[in-house]
Protein backbone atom coordinates (compact mmCIF):
# COMPACT_ATOMS: atom_id res chain seq x y z
CA UNK A 1 0.00 0.00 0.00
CA UNK A 2 1.47 3.37 -1.06
CA UNK A 3 1.43 6.78 0.64
CA UNK A 4 -1.23 8.22 -1.67
CA UNK A 5 -4.39 9.61 -0.07
CA UNK A 6 -6.51 6.71 1.06
CA UNK A 7 -9.95 6.36 -0.47
CA UNK A 8 -12.88 5.34 1.70
CA UNK A 9 -16.33 4.30 0.57
CA UNK A 10 -18.88 4.78 3.33
CA UNK A 11 -22.64 4.74 3.87
CA UNK A 12 -25.44 3.24 5.93
CA UNK A 13 -26.47 -0.30 5.01
CA UNK A 14 -30.00 -1.56 4.41
CA UNK A 15 -33.26 0.13 5.36
CA UNK A 16 -31.58 2.54 7.72
CA UNK A 17 -31.95 6.31 7.46
CA UNK A 18 -29.58 7.51 10.18
CA UNK A 19 -28.23 10.35 8.09
CA UNK A 20 -26.73 12.41 10.95
CA UNK A 21 -24.32 9.64 11.94
CA UNK A 22 -23.49 9.19 8.28
CA UNK A 23 -22.60 12.86 7.90
CA UNK A 24 -20.48 12.80 11.05
CA UNK A 25 -18.51 9.85 9.72
CA UNK A 26 -18.03 11.62 6.38
CA UNK A 27 -16.77 14.83 8.08
CA UNK A 28 -14.49 12.92 10.47
CA UNK A 29 -12.93 10.90 7.66
CA UNK A 30 -12.30 14.02 5.59
CA UNK A 31 -10.76 15.75 8.61
CA UNK A 32 -8.36 12.84 8.92
CA UNK A 33 -7.27 13.28 5.28
CA UNK A 34 -9.22 10.50 3.57
CA UNK A 35 -10.86 10.90 0.16
CA UNK A 36 -14.46 10.02 0.96
CA UNK A 37 -17.15 8.55 -1.30
CA UNK A 38 -20.31 8.76 0.75
CA UNK A 39 -23.16 6.65 -0.60
CA UNK A 40 -25.52 7.97 2.07
CA UNK A 41 -28.30 6.08 3.81
CA UNK A 42 -30.37 3.11 2.57
CA UNK A 43 -27.51 1.53 0.65
CA UNK A 44 -27.37 -2.10 -0.47
CA UNK A 45 -24.28 -4.23 0.05
CA UNK A 46 -23.84 -4.66 -3.73
CA UNK A 47 -23.73 -0.87 -4.13
CA UNK A 48 -20.94 -0.64 -1.54
CA UNK A 49 -18.91 -3.28 -3.34
CA UNK A 50 -19.53 -1.67 -6.72
CA UNK A 51 -18.45 1.73 -5.38
CA UNK A 52 -15.23 0.19 -4.06
CA UNK A 53 -14.53 -1.21 -7.53
CA UNK A 54 -15.34 2.00 -9.43
CA UNK A 55 -13.16 4.13 -7.13
CA UNK A 56 -10.46 1.53 -6.41
CA UNK A 57 -11.01 2.34 -2.73
CA UNK A 58 -8.71 1.18 0.05
CA UNK A 59 -11.36 1.00 2.75
CA UNK A 60 -15.06 0.17 2.89
CA UNK A 61 -16.60 1.57 6.04
CA UNK A 62 -20.20 0.49 6.54
CA UNK A 63 -22.29 1.92 9.34
CA UNK A 64 -25.52 0.63 10.78
CA UNK A 65 -27.59 2.03 13.60
CA UNK A 66 -30.83 0.12 13.62
CA UNK A 67 -29.15 -3.28 13.91
CA UNK A 68 -30.20 -4.51 10.47
CA UNK A 69 -26.64 -5.00 9.26
CA UNK A 70 -26.67 -8.58 10.47
CA UNK A 71 -29.10 -9.48 7.73
CA UNK A 72 -27.70 -7.22 5.03
CA UNK A 73 -24.01 -8.15 5.24
CA UNK A 74 -24.15 -11.92 5.04
CA UNK A 75 -23.07 -12.02 1.39
CA UNK A 76 -19.92 -10.00 1.96
CA UNK A 77 -17.58 -13.01 1.80
CA UNK A 78 -19.14 -14.10 -1.48
CA UNK A 79 -18.91 -10.65 -3.09
CA UNK A 80 -15.42 -10.12 -1.76
CA UNK A 81 -14.17 -13.28 -3.43
CA UNK A 82 -16.11 -12.72 -6.67
CA UNK A 83 -14.35 -9.41 -7.27
CA UNK A 84 -11.04 -10.44 -5.66
CA UNK A 85 -10.99 -7.53 -3.23
CA UNK A 86 -8.38 -8.96 -0.90
CA UNK A 87 -6.44 -5.70 -0.45
CA UNK A 88 -9.48 -3.68 0.63
CA UNK A 89 -10.04 -3.18 4.36
CA UNK A 90 -13.63 -3.91 5.35
CA UNK A 91 -14.91 -2.10 8.41
CA UNK A 92 -18.32 -2.03 10.05
CA UNK A 93 -19.45 0.02 13.00
CA UNK A 94 -22.47 1.31 14.90
CA UNK A 95 -25.16 -0.60 16.67
CA UNK A 96 -24.74 -4.01 15.09
CA UNK A 97 -27.49 -6.04 16.73
CA UNK A 98 -31.20 -5.75 17.33
CA UNK A 99 -31.76 -5.61 21.08
CA UNK A 100 -29.08 -6.41 23.64
CA UNK A 101 -25.92 -8.16 22.43
CA UNK A 102 -22.41 -8.57 23.76
CA UNK A 103 -19.34 -7.50 21.82
CA UNK A 104 -17.77 -10.94 22.27
CA UNK A 105 -20.74 -12.47 20.41
CA UNK A 106 -21.16 -9.82 17.75
CA UNK A 107 -17.54 -9.23 16.70
CA UNK A 108 -16.74 -12.85 15.72
CA UNK A 109 -19.99 -13.06 13.79
CA UNK A 110 -19.15 -10.04 11.62
CA UNK A 111 -15.54 -11.14 11.22
CA UNK A 112 -16.90 -14.41 9.87
CA UNK A 113 -18.93 -12.37 7.37
CA UNK A 114 -15.61 -10.99 6.07
CA UNK A 115 -15.06 -7.74 7.98
CA UNK A 116 -11.50 -6.93 9.11
CA UNK A 117 -12.57 -4.48 11.83
CA UNK A 118 -15.85 -4.53 13.77
CA UNK A 119 -16.94 -1.73 16.13
CA UNK A 120 -20.08 -2.49 18.05
CA UNK A 121 -21.27 0.49 20.13
CA UNK A 122 -17.82 2.07 20.11
CA UNK A 123 -17.44 5.84 19.69
CA UNK A 124 -16.48 7.16 16.28
CA UNK A 125 -13.05 8.58 17.09
CA UNK A 126 -11.92 5.43 18.88
CA UNK A 127 -13.02 3.42 15.87
CA UNK A 128 -11.21 5.67 13.41
CA UNK A 129 -8.04 5.66 15.56
CA UNK A 130 -8.10 1.87 15.48
CA UNK A 131 -8.61 1.94 11.71
CA UNK A 132 -5.61 4.24 11.26
CA UNK A 133 -3.45 2.00 13.42
CA UNK A 134 -4.61 -1.01 11.39
CA UNK A 135 -3.71 0.70 8.11
CA UNK A 136 -0.32 1.77 9.48
CA UNK A 137 0.33 -1.77 10.61
CA UNK A 138 -0.43 -3.04 7.10
CA UNK A 139 2.07 -0.61 5.56
CA UNK A 140 4.86 -1.62 7.91
CA UNK A 141 4.16 -5.28 7.27
Amino acid at each position, binding site marked *: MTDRIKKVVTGVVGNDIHVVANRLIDISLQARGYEV*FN*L*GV*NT*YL*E*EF*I*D*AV*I*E*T*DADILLISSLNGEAEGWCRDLQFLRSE*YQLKDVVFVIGGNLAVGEAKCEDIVPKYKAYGFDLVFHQIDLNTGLDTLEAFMQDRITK
Partner: protein
Amino acid sequence: MSKLLIDVGSTYFKTSSSEGVAQAFRDFSMTIFDDLSHKFANKIAAYKKEDIYICSSANGGLSTLIIGLTNSFSLKYAKNIAFNSGINIIDTVLVHELQTSVAPTQLLDVVIVVGGIDSVGGIYDTKLISYLAKLRYSNIVYVGNTQDVPFLRSHVEALVVLENIIDNKLKVREEALKEYLTNLYQQDIVGKEDIKQLYAITANQIFSTPYIVNRSLPFIGTKFAVVDPFIVVDIGGATTDIHYSRDLVRDNIVSENGFDRLVFKKLGVYKSRESLVFAAKSNEFVYEMLNYLNVTENILEEQSEKATKILMLLSIFLVLYKVSSYKPAYVTLNLERLNALVFTGGITKVLSQDEVLSIVHFFYKKVLNTNTIPTIVLDHNYDIWTLGMHQ
Protein backbone atom coordinates in the same frame (compact mmCIF):
# COMPACT_ATOMS: atom_id res chain seq x y z
CA MET B 1 -50.84 30.92 -39.88
CA SER B 2 -50.90 27.93 -37.54
CA LYS B 3 -48.57 24.98 -37.68
CA LEU B 4 -49.11 21.51 -39.07
CA LEU B 5 -47.58 18.87 -36.80
CA ILE B 6 -46.95 15.37 -38.12
CA ASP B 7 -45.88 12.28 -36.20
CA VAL B 8 -44.64 9.31 -38.19
CA GLY B 9 -45.13 6.27 -35.98
CA SER B 10 -44.39 2.63 -36.67
CA THR B 11 -48.09 1.95 -37.26
CA TYR B 12 -49.93 5.27 -37.60
CA PHE B 13 -49.47 8.75 -38.96
CA LYS B 14 -50.83 11.49 -36.74
CA THR B 15 -51.39 15.09 -37.69
CA SER B 16 -52.36 18.07 -35.60
CA SER B 17 -53.47 21.40 -36.98
CA SER B 18 -55.94 24.16 -36.20
CA GLU B 19 -58.67 21.80 -37.45
CA GLY B 20 -57.80 19.22 -34.79
CA VAL B 21 -56.06 15.88 -34.68
CA ALA B 22 -56.27 13.24 -37.41
CA GLN B 23 -54.65 9.87 -37.82
CA ALA B 24 -54.27 7.23 -40.50
CA PHE B 25 -52.99 3.66 -40.52
CA ARG B 26 -49.75 3.36 -42.46
CA ASP B 27 -49.53 1.46 -45.72
CA PHE B 28 -46.29 -0.50 -45.62
CA SER B 29 -46.34 -1.24 -49.35
CA MET B 30 -45.24 2.32 -50.15
CA THR B 31 -42.63 4.74 -48.81
CA ILE B 32 -43.45 6.96 -45.83
CA PHE B 33 -43.33 10.03 -48.07
CA ASP B 34 -45.70 8.60 -50.70
CA ASP B 35 -48.07 7.26 -48.07
CA LEU B 36 -48.14 10.52 -46.13
CA SER B 37 -48.48 12.68 -49.26
CA HIS B 38 -51.34 10.49 -50.44
CA LYS B 39 -53.27 10.42 -47.15
CA PHE B 40 -52.83 14.05 -46.15
CA ALA B 41 -52.33 15.69 -49.54
CA ASN B 42 -54.77 18.58 -49.01
CA LYS B 43 -53.55 19.31 -45.53
CA ILE B 44 -49.87 19.36 -46.52
CA ALA B 45 -50.62 21.54 -49.55
CA ALA B 46 -52.37 24.08 -47.32
CA TYR B 47 -49.22 24.78 -45.27
CA LYS B 48 -45.88 26.33 -46.12
CA LYS B 49 -42.78 24.18 -45.57
CA GLU B 50 -41.74 26.45 -42.69
CA ASP B 51 -44.99 25.72 -40.85
CA ILE B 52 -44.78 21.94 -41.04
CA TYR B 53 -43.08 20.16 -38.13
CA ILE B 54 -42.38 16.42 -38.22
CA CYS B 55 -41.22 13.93 -35.62
CA SER B 56 -40.70 10.22 -36.11
CA SER B 57 -40.31 7.05 -34.12
CA ALA B 58 -40.59 4.87 -37.19
CA ASN B 59 -36.94 3.91 -37.30
CA GLY B 60 -37.24 1.77 -34.16
CA GLY B 61 -34.35 3.43 -32.31
CA LEU B 62 -30.68 2.55 -32.12
CA SER B 63 -29.38 -0.71 -30.69
CA THR B 64 -26.70 -0.50 -28.03
CA LEU B 65 -24.37 -2.75 -26.11
CA ILE B 66 -22.91 -1.30 -22.92
CA ILE B 67 -19.69 -2.60 -21.39
CA GLY B 68 -19.13 -1.41 -17.84
CA LEU B 69 -17.35 -2.10 -14.60
CA THR B 70 -20.25 -2.48 -12.14
CA ASN B 71 -24.03 -2.74 -12.20
CA SER B 72 -24.66 -0.01 -9.63
CA PHE B 73 -22.62 2.75 -11.24
CA SER B 74 -21.09 2.54 -14.71
CA LEU B 75 -23.73 0.29 -16.27
CA LYS B 76 -26.59 1.96 -14.46
CA TYR B 77 -25.51 5.48 -15.40
CA ALA B 78 -24.88 4.56 -19.03
CA LYS B 79 -28.22 2.74 -19.31
CA ASN B 80 -30.06 5.70 -17.87
CA ILE B 81 -28.43 8.13 -20.29
CA ALA B 82 -29.00 5.80 -23.23
CA PHE B 83 -32.71 5.33 -22.47
CA ASN B 84 -33.16 9.08 -22.11
CA SER B 85 -31.51 9.60 -25.48
CA GLY B 86 -33.98 7.30 -27.24
CA ILE B 87 -31.66 4.31 -27.44
CA ASN B 88 -32.74 0.67 -27.13
CA ILE B 89 -30.33 -1.34 -25.02
CA ILE B 90 -29.90 -4.85 -26.26
CA ASP B 91 -27.36 -6.06 -23.74
CA THR B 92 -24.89 -5.14 -21.03
CA VAL B 93 -21.61 -6.83 -20.12
CA LEU B 94 -19.51 -6.49 -16.99
CA VAL B 95 -15.76 -6.14 -17.45
CA HIS B 96 -14.98 -9.15 -15.28
CA GLU B 97 -17.31 -11.29 -17.40
CA LEU B 98 -15.87 -10.26 -20.79
CA GLN B 99 -14.11 -13.57 -21.34
CA THR B 100 -17.14 -15.69 -20.52
CA SER B 101 -19.91 -13.58 -22.08
CA VAL B 102 -21.43 -14.52 -25.41
CA ALA B 103 -21.11 -11.60 -27.81
CA PRO B 104 -24.34 -10.48 -29.53
CA THR B 105 -24.37 -11.46 -33.18
CA GLN B 106 -26.56 -8.67 -34.51
CA LEU B 107 -25.17 -5.45 -35.95
CA LEU B 108 -25.00 -2.86 -33.16
CA ASP B 109 -25.49 0.81 -33.84
CA VAL B 110 -23.31 1.84 -30.94
CA VAL B 111 -21.11 0.24 -28.29
CA ILE B 112 -20.65 2.22 -25.07
CA VAL B 113 -17.62 1.49 -22.90
CA VAL B 114 -17.50 2.93 -19.38
CA GLY B 115 -15.87 2.32 -16.02
CA GLY B 116 -14.05 3.90 -13.09
CA ILE B 117 -13.52 7.42 -11.82
CA ASP B 118 -10.63 9.36 -13.36
CA SER B 119 -8.12 8.47 -10.64
CA VAL B 120 -8.53 4.77 -11.47
CA GLY B 121 -6.74 3.14 -14.39
CA GLY B 122 -5.95 -0.23 -15.90
CA ILE B 123 -9.56 -1.36 -16.07
CA TYR B 124 -9.45 -2.14 -19.75
CA ASP B 125 -6.84 -4.32 -21.37
CA THR B 126 -6.55 -6.87 -24.17
CA LYS B 127 -9.61 -8.75 -22.88
CA LEU B 128 -11.78 -5.88 -24.08
CA ILE B 129 -10.00 -5.77 -27.42
CA SER B 130 -10.58 -9.51 -27.95
CA TYR B 131 -14.24 -9.10 -27.04
CA LEU B 132 -14.71 -6.14 -29.39
CA ALA B 133 -13.20 -8.21 -32.20
CA LYS B 134 -16.20 -10.55 -31.89
CA LEU B 135 -18.73 -7.74 -32.30
CA ARG B 136 -20.16 -6.01 -35.35
CA TYR B 137 -20.82 -2.35 -34.63
CA SER B 138 -21.11 0.99 -36.42
CA ASN B 139 -19.97 3.33 -33.63
CA ILE B 140 -18.01 2.99 -30.42
CA VAL B 141 -17.80 5.56 -27.65
CA TYR B 142 -15.68 5.56 -24.50
CA VAL B 143 -16.98 7.45 -21.47
CA GLY B 144 -14.89 5.94 -18.69
CA ASN B 145 -11.78 6.94 -16.71
CA THR B 146 -9.19 9.11 -18.43
CA GLN B 147 -6.22 6.90 -17.59
CA ASP B 148 -7.30 4.12 -19.97
CA VAL B 149 -7.78 6.48 -22.90
CA PRO B 150 -4.25 6.14 -24.44
CA PHE B 151 -4.46 2.33 -24.43
CA LEU B 152 -7.95 2.30 -25.93
CA ARG B 153 -7.14 4.94 -28.54
CA SER B 154 -4.21 2.88 -29.76
CA HIS B 155 -6.18 -0.36 -29.96
CA VAL B 156 -9.73 0.59 -30.96
CA GLU B 157 -10.34 2.02 -34.40
CA ALA B 158 -12.68 5.02 -34.75
CA LEU B 159 -13.10 5.29 -30.99
CA VAL B 160 -14.95 8.40 -29.85
CA VAL B 161 -13.76 9.57 -26.43
CA LEU B 162 -16.04 11.74 -24.34
CA GLU B 163 -16.03 13.06 -20.79
CA ASN B 164 -16.25 10.36 -18.09
CA ILE B 165 -19.91 9.89 -17.11
CA ILE B 166 -18.82 9.19 -13.51
CA ASP B 167 -17.42 12.22 -11.75
CA ASN B 168 -14.88 12.18 -8.94
CA LYS B 169 -17.66 11.96 -6.34
CA LEU B 170 -19.21 8.93 -8.05
CA LYS B 171 -22.11 11.01 -9.34
CA VAL B 172 -23.44 10.85 -12.87
CA ARG B 173 -22.30 13.36 -15.49
CA GLU B 174 -24.65 12.86 -18.38
CA GLU B 175 -24.44 15.79 -20.78
CA ALA B 176 -21.62 14.71 -23.15
CA LEU B 177 -22.87 11.16 -23.71
CA LYS B 178 -26.48 12.29 -23.91
CA GLU B 179 -25.65 14.82 -26.60
CA TYR B 180 -23.59 12.27 -28.54
CA LEU B 181 -26.35 9.61 -28.44
CA THR B 182 -29.12 12.08 -29.22
CA ASN B 183 -27.17 13.29 -32.25
CA LEU B 184 -26.52 9.73 -33.33
CA TYR B 185 -30.22 8.95 -33.07
CA GLN B 186 -31.00 12.12 -34.96
CA GLN B 187 -28.54 11.21 -37.71
CA ASP B 188 -30.07 7.74 -37.89
CA ILE B 189 -33.55 9.21 -38.36
CA VAL B 190 -32.58 11.70 -41.01
CA GLY B 191 -30.17 9.24 -42.62
CA LYS B 192 -32.98 6.81 -43.42
CA GLU B 193 -34.00 7.23 -47.03
CA ASP B 194 -37.67 7.15 -46.06
CA ILE B 195 -37.27 10.01 -43.61
CA LYS B 196 -34.87 12.04 -45.78
CA GLN B 197 -37.62 12.36 -48.38
CA LEU B 198 -39.82 14.12 -45.82
CA TYR B 199 -37.60 17.20 -46.04
CA ALA B 200 -39.41 17.84 -49.30
CA ILE B 201 -42.41 18.94 -47.23
CA THR B 202 -40.77 20.53 -44.18
CA ALA B 203 -38.11 23.16 -43.73
CA ASN B 204 -37.71 22.27 -40.04
CA GLN B 205 -35.54 19.66 -38.35
CA ILE B 206 -37.18 16.25 -37.92
CA PHE B 207 -36.95 15.10 -34.29
CA SER B 208 -37.44 11.72 -32.64
CA THR B 209 -40.83 11.27 -30.98
CA PRO B 210 -39.50 10.12 -27.55
CA TYR B 211 -37.45 13.32 -27.41
CA ILE B 212 -40.56 15.40 -28.14
CA VAL B 213 -42.65 13.58 -25.51
CA ASN B 214 -39.91 13.93 -22.88
CA ARG B 215 -39.68 17.65 -23.64
CA SER B 216 -43.38 18.14 -22.93
CA LEU B 217 -43.45 16.51 -19.49
CA PRO B 218 -42.57 19.55 -17.34
CA PHE B 219 -45.56 21.33 -18.95
CA ILE B 220 -48.07 18.48 -18.76
CA GLY B 221 -50.00 20.25 -15.99
CA THR B 222 -51.07 22.91 -18.48
CA LYS B 223 -53.15 20.36 -20.38
CA PHE B 224 -54.24 17.79 -17.80
CA ALA B 225 -55.14 17.66 -14.14
CA VAL B 226 -51.98 15.76 -13.33
CA VAL B 227 -50.15 15.89 -10.02
CA ASP B 228 -46.52 14.88 -9.67
CA PRO B 229 -45.32 12.14 -9.32
CA PHE B 230 -46.81 10.73 -12.50
CA ILE B 231 -45.87 8.41 -15.31
CA VAL B 232 -46.71 8.64 -18.98
CA VAL B 233 -47.22 5.29 -20.70
CA ASP B 234 -47.01 5.49 -24.47
CA ILE B 235 -48.22 2.19 -25.89
CA GLY B 236 -47.60 2.17 -29.60
CA GLY B 237 -47.57 -0.31 -32.43
CA ALA B 238 -43.99 -1.49 -32.02
CA THR B 239 -42.78 -0.38 -28.59
CA THR B 240 -44.01 0.89 -25.28
CA ASP B 241 -42.32 3.87 -23.70
CA ILE B 242 -42.60 4.90 -20.09
CA HIS B 243 -41.66 8.41 -19.07
CA TYR B 244 -41.52 8.69 -15.30
CA SER B 245 -40.82 11.27 -12.62
CA ARG B 246 -37.48 10.64 -10.97
CA ASP B 247 -39.23 10.99 -7.58
CA LEU B 248 -40.59 7.48 -8.12
CA VAL B 249 -37.20 5.82 -8.22
CA ARG B 250 -34.99 4.89 -5.36
CA ASP B 251 -31.50 4.98 -6.79
CA ASN B 252 -28.17 6.71 -6.64
CA ILE B 253 -28.54 8.83 -9.77
CA VAL B 254 -28.71 12.54 -9.16
CA SER B 255 -29.56 14.18 -12.46
CA GLU B 256 -30.86 17.55 -13.54
CA ASN B 257 -33.56 16.01 -15.69
CA GLY B 258 -36.73 15.46 -13.66
CA PHE B 259 -38.02 12.75 -15.99
CA ASP B 260 -36.48 9.56 -17.28
CA ARG B 261 -37.52 7.29 -20.08
CA LEU B 262 -37.67 3.54 -20.31
CA VAL B 263 -38.53 1.62 -23.45
CA PHE B 264 -39.90 -1.88 -23.83
CA LYS B 265 -38.96 -2.86 -27.34
CA LYS B 266 -41.06 -5.97 -27.51
CA LEU B 267 -44.33 -4.62 -26.18
CA GLY B 268 -46.40 -3.28 -29.02
CA VAL B 269 -49.83 -4.25 -30.27
CA TYR B 270 -49.12 -4.43 -34.01
CA LYS B 271 -45.50 -4.83 -35.05
CA SER B 272 -44.50 -6.54 -31.80
CA ARG B 273 -47.74 -8.46 -31.38
CA GLU B 274 -46.09 -11.90 -31.26
CA SER B 275 -43.63 -10.95 -28.54
CA LEU B 276 -46.41 -9.25 -26.59
CA VAL B 277 -48.50 -12.45 -26.71
CA PHE B 278 -45.43 -14.44 -25.66
CA ALA B 279 -44.79 -12.09 -22.72
CA ALA B 280 -48.45 -12.29 -21.72
CA LYS B 281 -48.51 -16.09 -21.83
CA SER B 282 -45.37 -16.25 -19.69
CA ASN B 283 -46.89 -14.04 -17.02
CA GLU B 284 -48.10 -15.76 -13.86
CA PHE B 285 -51.25 -13.60 -13.66
CA VAL B 286 -52.37 -14.06 -17.26
CA TYR B 287 -55.16 -16.60 -16.68
CA GLU B 288 -56.64 -14.66 -13.79
CA MET B 289 -56.44 -11.54 -15.90
CA LEU B 290 -58.15 -13.15 -18.91
CA ASN B 291 -60.82 -14.51 -16.59
CA TYR B 292 -61.23 -11.02 -15.14
CA LEU B 293 -61.69 -9.68 -18.69
CA ASN B 294 -64.23 -12.44 -19.42
CA VAL B 295 -62.27 -14.03 -22.26
CA THR B 296 -60.27 -17.24 -22.77
CA GLU B 297 -56.66 -17.56 -23.89
CA ASN B 298 -57.85 -18.29 -27.46
CA ILE B 299 -58.42 -14.56 -27.84
CA LEU B 300 -54.64 -14.09 -28.01
CA GLU B 301 -54.53 -15.96 -31.32
CA GLU B 302 -57.45 -14.10 -32.87
CA GLN B 303 -57.18 -11.17 -35.29
CA SER B 304 -60.19 -9.12 -34.32
CA GLU B 305 -60.97 -5.73 -32.84
CA LYS B 306 -61.78 -7.37 -29.54
CA ALA B 307 -58.45 -9.26 -29.57
CA THR B 308 -56.58 -5.99 -30.16
CA LYS B 309 -58.40 -4.44 -27.23
CA ILE B 310 -57.48 -7.35 -24.98
CA LEU B 311 -53.85 -7.10 -26.12
CA MET B 312 -53.82 -3.42 -25.26
CA LEU B 313 -55.19 -4.14 -21.80
CA LEU B 314 -52.60 -6.87 -21.38
CA SER B 315 -49.83 -4.52 -22.40
CA ILE B 316 -50.92 -2.00 -19.75
CA PHE B 317 -50.77 -4.73 -17.14
CA LEU B 318 -47.40 -6.03 -18.36
CA VAL B 319 -45.80 -2.61 -18.44
CA LEU B 320 -46.89 -1.84 -14.87
CA TYR B 321 -45.83 -5.32 -13.79
CA LYS B 322 -42.36 -4.87 -15.33
CA VAL B 323 -41.65 -1.65 -13.46
CA SER B 324 -43.24 -2.68 -10.16
CA SER B 325 -41.41 -3.78 -7.05
CA TYR B 326 -43.00 -7.20 -7.59
CA LYS B 327 -40.61 -7.77 -10.47
CA PRO B 328 -37.31 -6.03 -9.69
CA ALA B 329 -35.61 -5.08 -12.95
CA TYR B 330 -33.54 -2.23 -14.33
CA VAL B 331 -35.98 0.33 -12.97
CA THR B 332 -38.36 -0.22 -10.10
CA LEU B 333 -40.93 2.52 -9.75
CA ASN B 334 -42.64 3.20 -6.46
CA LEU B 335 -46.11 2.75 -7.94
CA GLU B 336 -47.77 3.05 -4.53
CA ARG B 337 -46.66 6.71 -4.50
CA LEU B 338 -47.98 7.41 -7.97
CA ASN B 339 -50.53 10.22 -8.20
CA ALA B 340 -51.38 10.04 -11.88
CA LEU B 341 -51.07 7.51 -14.66
CA VAL B 342 -51.25 9.13 -18.09
CA PHE B 343 -51.80 7.00 -21.18
CA THR B 344 -50.94 8.20 -24.64
CA GLY B 345 -50.33 6.62 -28.04
CA GLY B 346 -52.60 4.44 -30.15
CA ILE B 347 -54.39 2.85 -27.20
CA THR B 348 -56.19 6.05 -26.29
CA LYS B 349 -58.12 5.82 -29.54
CA VAL B 350 -59.24 2.25 -28.86
CA LEU B 351 -59.75 1.84 -25.12
CA SER B 352 -62.31 3.63 -23.01
CA GLN B 353 -61.59 5.27 -19.67
CA ASP B 354 -63.53 2.50 -17.89
CA GLU B 355 -61.59 -0.29 -19.57
CA VAL B 356 -58.26 1.27 -18.62
CA LEU B 357 -59.51 1.94 -15.10
CA SER B 358 -60.59 -1.66 -14.75
CA ILE B 359 -57.20 -3.16 -15.74
CA VAL B 360 -55.30 -0.69 -13.54
CA HIS B 361 -57.60 -1.69 -10.67
CA PHE B 362 -56.83 -5.34 -11.34
CA PHE B 363 -53.08 -4.62 -11.33
CA TYR B 364 -53.11 -2.64 -8.08
CA LYS B 365 -55.33 -5.18 -6.33
CA LYS B 366 -53.53 -8.28 -7.56
CA VAL B 367 -49.89 -7.21 -7.62
CA LEU B 368 -49.66 -4.33 -5.17
CA ASN B 369 -52.44 -5.55 -2.90
CA THR B 370 -54.24 -2.24 -2.60
CA ASN B 371 -57.57 -0.81 -3.72
CA THR B 372 -56.23 2.72 -4.03
CA ILE B 373 -55.22 3.58 -7.56
CA PRO B 374 -53.77 6.75 -9.11
CA THR B 375 -55.81 9.15 -11.24
CA ILE B 376 -56.11 7.80 -14.77
CA VAL B 377 -55.73 10.26 -17.62
CA LEU B 378 -56.18 9.33 -21.28
CA ASP B 379 -54.49 11.65 -23.75
CA HIS B 380 -57.19 11.18 -26.42
CA ASN B 381 -56.06 14.11 -28.54
CA TYR B 382 -52.32 13.46 -28.39
CA ASP B 383 -51.96 16.68 -26.42
CA ILE B 384 -48.66 15.53 -24.92
CA TRP B 385 -47.14 15.20 -28.35
CA THR B 386 -48.49 18.52 -29.61
CA LEU B 387 -47.32 20.20 -26.41
CA GLY B 388 -43.78 18.89 -26.99
CA MET B 389 -43.82 19.96 -30.64
CA HIS B 390 -44.91 23.47 -29.69
CA GLN B 391 -42.18 23.89 -27.04
